[in-house]
């Protein structure tokens, strides 16, 4: 729009930082041993440097920004490389590669390398992160709750990133967005807490002898119901019946 005629409409910074931190937190929860943790830490350093580079570039410090962007990208690539040679079974390695590539792609999306790609790259990063959670869940030896929390982290990361992209498009990067991002984050975090509690509760009290087919059918039915509700949901009562 106009105003400051061509504001930088890249993703808002506070939301971007939250997204990358949430993604990294989720991946830390998935790490099995100190070595895996170290790889994720290297990845985190790279992703952080990338975001910092994006910020510096926005502030007009092009040279330092470019330097930080290059360093960050190189560090992320090193982390992914380390993940590919991680001394473990190939499934673990796939999980770790996905888990390092995900935050990296997310950071690249939020820098942003290219504004029109931001949305799609966020989607790709989310897919990688969900993939990491799924592969890690396939492997034995992970705590149920950790897996739940990690998935919540992934959803929060996607939510924060998508929100930041929308905020940037609406009000630009120079506008103050911390408050809105915090409010939004509080909402999605509390939804996540409810989700984890519900899942753990369900697991604890649920009957254990139901055939798998019934569980799957129930699961599909719930997904279908919620999706239908979400798609056809008409804003209720207080907003439509008040025509004078």
């Amino acid at each position, binding site marked *: *729009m106009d105003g400051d005629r061509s*504001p930088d409409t890249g993703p808002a910074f506070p939301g971007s930082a939250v997204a990358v931190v949430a993604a990294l937190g989720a991946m830390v929860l998935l790490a099995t041993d100190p070595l895996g943790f170290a790889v994720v830490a290297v990845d985190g350093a790279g992703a952080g440097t990338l975001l910092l580079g994006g910020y510096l570039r926005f502030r007009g410090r092009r040279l330092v920004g470019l330097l930080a962007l290059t360093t960050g990208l190189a560090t992320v690539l090193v982390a992914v490389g380390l993940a590919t040679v991680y001394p473990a079974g190939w499934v673990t390695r796939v999980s770790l590669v996905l888990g390092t590539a995900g935050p990296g792609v997310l950071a690249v999306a939020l820098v942003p390398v290219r504004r029109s790609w931001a949305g799609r790259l966020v989607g790709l990063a989310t897919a990688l992160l969900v993939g990491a*959670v799924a592969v890690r869940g396939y492997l034995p030896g992970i705590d149920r709750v950790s897996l739940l929390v990690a998935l919540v982290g992934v959803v929060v990361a996607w939510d924060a990133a998508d929100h930041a992209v929308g905020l940037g498009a*609406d009000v630009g990067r120079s506008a103050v967005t911390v408050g809105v991002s915090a409010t939004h984050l509080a909402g999605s975090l509390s939804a*996540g807490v409810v989700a984890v509690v519900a899942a753990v509760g369900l697991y604890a009290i649920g009957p254990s002898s139901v055939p798998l087919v019934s569980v799957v059918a129930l699961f599909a039915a719930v997904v279908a119901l919620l999706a239908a509700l979400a798609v056809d949901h008409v804003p*209720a009562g207080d907003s439509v019946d008040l025509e004078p």
Partner: protein
Amino acid sequence: MTDGDGVCEDPGDTPPNPERTGRWLTAVAIALAVGSVGVYFGRPSLLLAAVVGLAYTAYPLVTTDPVPTLTLTRGVDDASPAHGETVTVTATVTNTGSQTVPDVRIVDGVPPKLAVTEGTPRRAVALPPGESATVSYTVEASPGTHRFGPATVTCYDRSGAVRVETELRAGTCSDRSDGASETGGTDGADRTDKLADAPTVSTLECSVPVEGVPSPRETLRATGRTPVDTGGSGVAFHRTREYRPGDPADRIDWRRYARTGALTTVEFRPDRRRSVVVCLDARPQSVRRAGDGEADAVTAGGAAAAALATTFLDRGARVGVARLGPRFELVAPGDGRHHRERVTALLTAPPEDSTVAFDGENAGTRATTATGGVSGSAASSGSANEFAAQVDEVLERTSGAAEVVTVTPLLDEFGVDAVRRAAERGRGVAALSPDVTSDGSLGAELTGVERRNRIEALRSMGVPVGDWRPGDPVRWSRANGGARRDGR
């Protein structure tokens, strides 16, 4: 805004229209993906993790829709700045409802021709009931009347699943429910008072100082305030002449008669009324500007023309206005407060065909590097005739005593032609030319030289020409050339 019982009665705003973004369908995909992997590989923990996806799918169903019960007030530190002055604009959005709006994105309606120099007219904020959010930014004033547009306010619910977009005009609110009255009581009344007190500004008036008006050639035969160079009744001495039978006795110079015995009559300068038609060249060809951030010739010229018309009116002249352009309009000479407002509004209206100037980012350079009237007139000879016909219509529809002041950037021959047509009909003529040429490139310099040649041509015809660069006061050269303003 002025009513004591509420500020929300204005139904002029676009009705808020909630729409769903559907963003949380991503959670459905995540639930399906994780759940399917869990089922396929028989991993209960993954199937359980799908519950997270389901929970997030349900999340937008439990959040309340945003009810944008918002009001906007806008203030400026100087509503009538001079050219180039920076003006600080403060727009405040207040939540007058009883619900928190968790995600309000405000984009203030900056006047389209003004550039924001500092700060940003955008902000995103969470607004609890009764709270306000302020955007503050500075704009650099350019000549003209700049109207603020409505602020665009986009509200989301907490999950971001429902979006309500409204346009807020200053001093109004986007209330779409009776939420505001629910807050009730003294609280609501206080708020209303506060809003009513706050200054609300809808326009920035950047007027052009005018130093003098071109001297009159011809006046109406009505008494006014302009001394003219003929004999008659008045207060200022004009000349003496031989007595002619019928001259009033009190005008006979009796002292002279006593001294010499010859009867002479004293003549005074009569004060006559001027009648002026200010013609603004608002053709699309004239929507040109010197560079980015500069006012185009029609906007700046319109501001100067309005200032000139006001000056004429202040000096007691009858002023008419013609706007030559895609939308031809003529207001016959007149005076009075209402007439003054009408004249100013017509002259400061934004250019009709603004796409010409703003369809490309280097429109400004294209404007000034355009090779004058050659290509332009070839491309639009049909419309050139149309505009010439508009000049003729102005001359036909106004009385013969009305002077014609043409405000044109003189980027093509149209301005010279218009002045010539008026002069041929024996009208008093003058021209005011906003200078929108630059010396950024060879072509631009050429356009500037052509423009100065046209000014010289007009001056050699005896036409007073004001060579005016936006930002300076309007001055008039003597008709015989006289002092060039900046020595170029």
